[in-house]
């Protein structure tokens, strides 16, 4: 019985370690990718009069594709409600692009960056988060 318990405890410990590493890798890389894509879009649309260019459309498509791909993996580890705002802002971004509303477009882009930053901050094991 003692051996059974000991084996289980070791397995559980390893499982927890794997989960923590997986969470760190998947969530950090997913959120960082979104952040990078947003920065790239920001650079692309800088001083642009008309947002409705092929490059911007492709960049938004790319952002959405990367996010959807990462989101499904993140849903195993993260509360869906905590990350749904990013998806919501991406769909808003597409609407602003269609209507060439550059101010709203930029603020939506900022919101995505803010959510991804804040999620990274709130996920880490810092004293602030623990307390």
């Amino acid at each position, binding site marked *: 019985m003692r051996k059974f*318990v000991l084996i*289980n*405890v070791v397995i*559980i*410990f390893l*499982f*927890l370690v794997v*989960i923590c590493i997986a969470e760190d890798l998947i969530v950090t890389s997913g959120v960082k990718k979104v952040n990078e894509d947003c920065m790239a879009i920001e650079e692309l649309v800088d001083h642009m009069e008309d947002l409705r260019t092929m490059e911007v459309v492709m960049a938004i498509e790319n952002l959405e594709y990367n996010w959807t791909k990462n989101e499904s993996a993140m*849903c*195993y*580890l*993260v*509360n*869906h*409600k905590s990350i749904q705002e990013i998806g919501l802002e991406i769909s808003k971004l597409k609407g602003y692009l269609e209507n060439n509303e550059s101010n709203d477009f930029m603020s939506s882009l900022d919101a995505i960056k803010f959510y991804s930053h804040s999620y990274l901050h709130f996920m880490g094991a810092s004293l602030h988060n623990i307390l």
Partner: protein
Amino acid sequence: MLTIIIRAIVIYVLVLFVFRIMGKRQIGQMQPYELVLTLIIADLATIPMAEVSVPVLHGIVPLLTLVILHFVLSQLSKLSPRIAQLISGKPVIVINPKGIDYIAMKSLDISIDDLFEGIRGQGYFAMEQVQYAIMETTGKLSVVPKAGYAPVTNIDLKNKVDNNFLPVNLVCEGQVMENNLKLLNVDQEFVKSFILKKIGKSAKIKNVLLFTLDKSGNAYLQMKGEEFKTFQGVKI
């Protein structure tokens, strides 16, 4: 809805597994840290079960963390009596031959009524019947009665008695207990022939409610919907 059903099954199996690892004490009298753990587990298990947006891992990870914590605390308790005392407390003698230890009673924050309740639970109804009463770390009161009030045993009466043997369940609700047959070195044929001999040709194993036998040959047999019968000197 299917997600909730699957989550409920996953969490149920996991909690069952957690309790199996933690041992039987969780089900009966618990140490303080075990009680805390049980309360937390009950709460943790329900969160991912009903809230679909919460990943099931958010329930599983803390549950498994508690298993490790419990294991560590148990090991520490075994390692040093001081740590065990720190985690679980220590038994306190609340009644001694001089009477009720008022200071001990106050330190445990129990009243005379609580003390009486504990004593009555042990089958004693007057303080003068009790020599010692010890409040265990599980919150249970153990009572040592005064010699005059202690139950008379065969040793007191100097009676010669044979040791009791544990009755083994051979058939339970129509099912032959294969593992128990080995304990008495008997087989299914023995069980079948015994039932046929004692009940009659119409008897079938599936109609047996309970059939127990001990090593000294005492048997108890009850068919479903019938009165029980006992037999002595059954040859194994």
